[in-house]
């Protein structure tokens, strides 16, 4: 009667999504801090940081696409 798999899905998806986003953002923050070090490659570190922030946004956008039925049908072709 109780759908335990649904709880498992919520747990796994929550942990995976939150950890991935936090990891990516933290990496970005770290790279920005490294870019301010003496003798660091400012351009490389900064672009790495912005790549991390973009990745964050992409993960969130993917999540929203999965949740909205119209979007997931239009973009991913699944309903």
């Amino acid at each position, binding site marked *: 009667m109780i759908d335990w798999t649904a709880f498992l*899905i919520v747990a796994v998806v929550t*942990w995976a999504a939150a950890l991935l986003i*936090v990891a990516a953002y933290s990496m970005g923050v770290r790279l920005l801090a490294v870019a301010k070090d003496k003798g660091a490659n400012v351009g490389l570190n900064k672009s790495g940081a912005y790549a991390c922030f973009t990745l964050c946004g992409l993960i969130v956008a993917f999540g929203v696409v999965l949740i909205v039925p119209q979007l997931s049908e239009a973009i991913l072709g699944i309903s």
Partner: protein
Amino acid sequence: MDLTLIVVLVIALALFFDFTNGFHDTANAMATPIATGAISPKKAVALAAILNLVGAFLSTEVAKTISGGIINEDPTTGVAIGPAMIFAGLMGAVIWNLLTWLLGLPSSSSHALFGGLVGAAIVGAGFGAVNYGVLLSKVLLPAIVAPLIAGISAYLCTKLAYAITKRQSGTSPKRGGFRYGQIFSSSLVALSHGTNDAQKTMGVITLTLVASGLQDAGTPVHFWVVAACAFAIALGTYTGGWRIIQTMGSGLTDVKPAQGFAAEMSTASAILTSSHLGFALSTTQVASGSVIGSGLGRKGAEVRWGTAGRIALGWLFTLPAAAIVGGLAAWITHAGTVGVIIVAVAGLVSMLAIWVLSRKNPHTHETAMSDIDNSGAAVNILSKKERRAKAKAEAKAKQAALRAKAEREEAEEEKVDKA
């Protein structure tokens, strides 16, 4: 009583409930980025309102849980309870919400809503009117599991964020960047709030439409219902925003940007996934779970079990208490039109009375403003100095114990020698 009139009454009351929900809850999402100065209060409140509006349009799974799951359907008449019973249930929820707000008790407006509906359904149509399986698997169990999932997630994320940003050789970690991340994570929390809380009202309105025969059971939520609920919660969020601007700087728990980011990300992902699977959650409870979890993820944190226990007790109490109020209202409604009028008047009078009372002594309620903030108090984070002092005290106690043991042994040896 005229059928359409009572339907209009229920819809109006449901939208009022939605409005208070936005007014009460959503401001919480934006409190931290305002506190850290990452975003101006005006912009934050407007952003939260817009995202609630958008969130309400994203999904209707939770609305389906409420309109087609919890209350059993009668094969002949559609739904076992009439719109008058739903009106009674809603009134019970509204009264209970205002009462707990006045007394400063931790409560959940969502659970008050379910409690009121269940109570009214039981009184109105007997114990068979409620589908306990759905109630258990989509409301009660998620209420325990989701905050736990969010809390564990926040704990792990906080540890991860600090581990990744930690710099060797004593250079500053520059974690200020998380402040701007909090604009992003708070926005997601506001969005997720719209997907879950606005849908509860949609579910109630749809349930009413089905119960009064204006909509076929099992059909999707009407677009105008979605739009009305979305605007009600957005308006509530916007008008509720002045409050956080007022209470800013006072009483906010010590939340660091990196920790806040981790907590908000966990809250948002837990609520969004749950909404997608049709779990009707209390967003306040999930956010509280995250705040406590992320607090524990910081160095030198310890749980104040007394505070945590009091919050948990409040949550446990909400559903049955609201059920009793809802049941009582349903019982009065049974008297027909007179009953409905009595319930409506009683509800209005209690709303007015509570509003007047809260005006009289607003200061006692400042602490009850934010339930999430209250739950933050359940974790005590020691500063470096306090940690050192605690370690010293523990070492001292250990030494004292060792010394006492040695002395005791010596005394015993002496005794043996004497003998």
